[in-house]
């Protein structure tokens, strides 16, 4: 059985920041974290259904189980920061505040989709929200993300780039080429390894000689922190620490977020590589939304009814998005030939 998400925490031998403390959220912040995680989960569940109905085609990678990672990290960003990730990107967009309707409409391949229906699940972008994809080639987003960080440094602002990649991408060569240059040039970038334990069907310890992925930057003098990615407050705490480090010009930092995806790698995953019991175990004991819910109720400031109301509100947003995504028109055939080049030659 693969290692489940853990609360054991570790840091690298390279001098870095002190190990982060969990974020002390006020009740409004905690409610907002809960709402965002719930929105992602309900959105993804609906996307899975629409895939089953044939309304969504191709590859569709769901984020269910990993919600605390993007919500904890991205709630700490400021205007002008850049975010880039791989193909499991729906949650990253929703957490940035992008309208669920245009995300869902992209999944159904409609003109109102955020990429006009030309990108699909794996290729979504928003110049308005500083979201740079949505990349289908495993690992490409890491060097692209360092390019975004390079631009921040070149322009002399104190913005940072957040480059997410998985435990699978962590074995790609260009990741290490990028680590080298990012540290050499002290680029303002946080490398976020979303370790959901499986690269498609291959568990981390079957694919990685060093399976403690937060150590992967050590040869490049990049400090790393291993964080429980199933607790939104621990993630947010790590985000605060990492952003302070990187914004201060100390160069890149590596965060390994130990998390878990409940669904298959993509919709066509037969899931032969792990047991149902393993998934159930994590769902029951480590689920990020249930954990957050328990914190809210324990505070005494939020009631079951409050949460039911919130749930209803989130469901309505997702129903609207799904309805919109199925009724809004497909792209005009003339769109076939637009957006290939920006210039006229």
């Amino acid at each position, binding site marked *: 059985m693969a290692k489940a998400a853990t609360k054991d925490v570790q840091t690298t031998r390279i001098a870095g920041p002190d190990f982060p403390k969990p974020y002390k959220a006020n009740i409004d912040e905690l409610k907002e974290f809960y709402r965002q995680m719930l929105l992602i989960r309900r959105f993804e569940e609906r996307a899975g259904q629409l895939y089953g109905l044939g309304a969504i085609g191709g590859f569709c990678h769901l984020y269910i189980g990993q919600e605390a990672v993007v919500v904890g990290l991205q709630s700490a960003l400021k205007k002008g920061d850049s975010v880039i990730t791989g193909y499991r990107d729906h949650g990253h967009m929703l957490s940035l505040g992008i309208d669920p309707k245009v995300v869902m409409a992209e999944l159904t391949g409609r003109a109102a989709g955020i990429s006009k229906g030309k*990108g699909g699940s794996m290729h979504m972008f928003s110049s308005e929200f500083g979201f740079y994809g949505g990349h289908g080639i495993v690992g490409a987003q890491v060097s692209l993300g360092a390019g*975004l960080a390079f631009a921040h440094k070149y322009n002399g602002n104190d913005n940072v780039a957040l480059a997410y990649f998985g435990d699978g991408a962590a074995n790609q060569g260009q990741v290490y080429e990028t680590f080298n*240059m990012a540290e050499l040039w002290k680029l303002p970038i946080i490398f976020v390894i979303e370790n959901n334990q499986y690269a498609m069907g291959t568990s981390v310890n079957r694919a990685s000689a060093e399976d403690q992925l937060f150590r992967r930057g050590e040869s490049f003098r990049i400090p790393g922190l291993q964080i429980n990615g199933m607790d939104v407050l621990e993630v947010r705490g790590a985000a605060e620490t990492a952003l302070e480090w990187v914004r201060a010009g100390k160069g890149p930092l590596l965060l390994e977020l130990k998390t878990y995806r409940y669904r298959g790698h993509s919709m066509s995953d037969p899931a032969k590589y792990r047991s149902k019991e393993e998934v159930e175990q994590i769902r029951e004991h480590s689920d990020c939304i249930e954990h957050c819910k328990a914190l809210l109720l324990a505070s005494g400031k939020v009631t079951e009814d409050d949460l039911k109301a919130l749930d209803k509100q989130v469901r309505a947003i997702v129903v609207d998005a799904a309805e919109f995504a199925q009724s809004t028109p497909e792209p005009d055939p003339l769109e076939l030939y637009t957006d290939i080049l920006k210039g006229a030659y």
Partner: protein
Amino acid sequence: MVTEIFLPAMSPTMEEGTIAKWLVTEGDTVKPGQVIAEIETDKATMELESDDGGVVAKLMVAAGVEGVKVGTPIALIAEVGEDIQPKSSPFKGEGARLNEPLEANLVAAGKEPPLVAHPSPALADHPFQQGASITLREALRDAMAEEMRLDSRVFVMGEEVAEYQGAYKVTQGLLQEFGPARVIDTPITEHGFAGIGVGAAFGGLRPIIEFMTFNFAMQAIDHLINSAAKTNYMSGGQMGCPIVFRGPNGAASRVGAQHSQNYGPWYASVPGLIVIAPYDAADAKGLLKAAIRSPDPVVFLENELLYGKTFEVPEGDVVVPIGKARIMREGSDVTLVSYSIGVALSLEAADKLAAEGISAEVVDLRTLRPLDRDTVLASLKKTNRMVVVEEGWPQCSIASEITALVMEHGFDDLDAPVLRVTNKDVPLPYAKNLETLALVKTDDVIAAVKHVMYR
């Protein structure tokens, strides 16, 4: 015994050089391995060591004399106390300038050597280069420098572009004018820095990414195609990628198969890319300026063998439009279509054909994508015969594409089948004779023209 020191070849393509500075004078005693001169080559300033020890009997070429051919004797080293009797050079008669430096040496003898080692014009004196006869590598450098002066978002990144002054000296002087924040040496890590370049373009900058050669860009090709070329489309027009990937492409000289490939057809097949392959210095400059200003990703394919060639370059801020071919030479009997170094072969073939009464029109494609179909088809309409000349492999080549274009849109104008004249369909060999056999040649062009002329 008197030993002659010859100007050595210091790079695969070096044909001539300049003695930037003598570090010894006649009568000095030198030890084996002592540096006796600085030699300015087409790529760098290098130190020349004496293999033997002895007394400098004669300096035969003055410092500052340009265009000294490789193999020219430049100094005599005698044994201590020996009478100096220069031998006849095995290269006599080959270097046309042999006597000139000797005379110059007489004048310079015993005097301070003139210091004209760096003839490049001062970079920052004028925002735009004055009209002049300059090398293609200088034209490329001027294009980058001018655009960097105009737009602070433009920067250059690549291996050895800064402190080394460019592996092929194309970025010479840029570090000195623009500083290390805008002229950036990278580790040897093509995949990584190509991705960083594309990311920086997404982030609003205007990167110029130099590949030491396009052979090494194969390590990075995912970013050129999947990241740079496709993202604007996949984002519904949100993510433009204004980036230039440039560097030498195609065969150089005796560097073997892995360093000698023409990637024009590869990149030209990809929607979302602009692909440019200039022939002369004026185009290299004007098209590179256009490439840097383009909002789209540009693959800019240079040719190492052309870097040292001198051409007239017009004065001022001249930007050559992307996507427009040009007629290099008017003709009426046959059209030769080519690009990059193939244009030189085509022009030479046209000259020879003219002597035989055949009038060849030469079309320089300049841009491989978007391809200027109109100019190609208009020329065919005029001549009714076409030969495509390409320094590259035949299968799935630009020549194949032109041939298909003519089949689809110019069939009725054809009086003979279109012929492709290309390199042989083999990896480029190292041995001099085999390399010559493998590469496209002027005589092949002439033979093909005669074939389509039924002569």
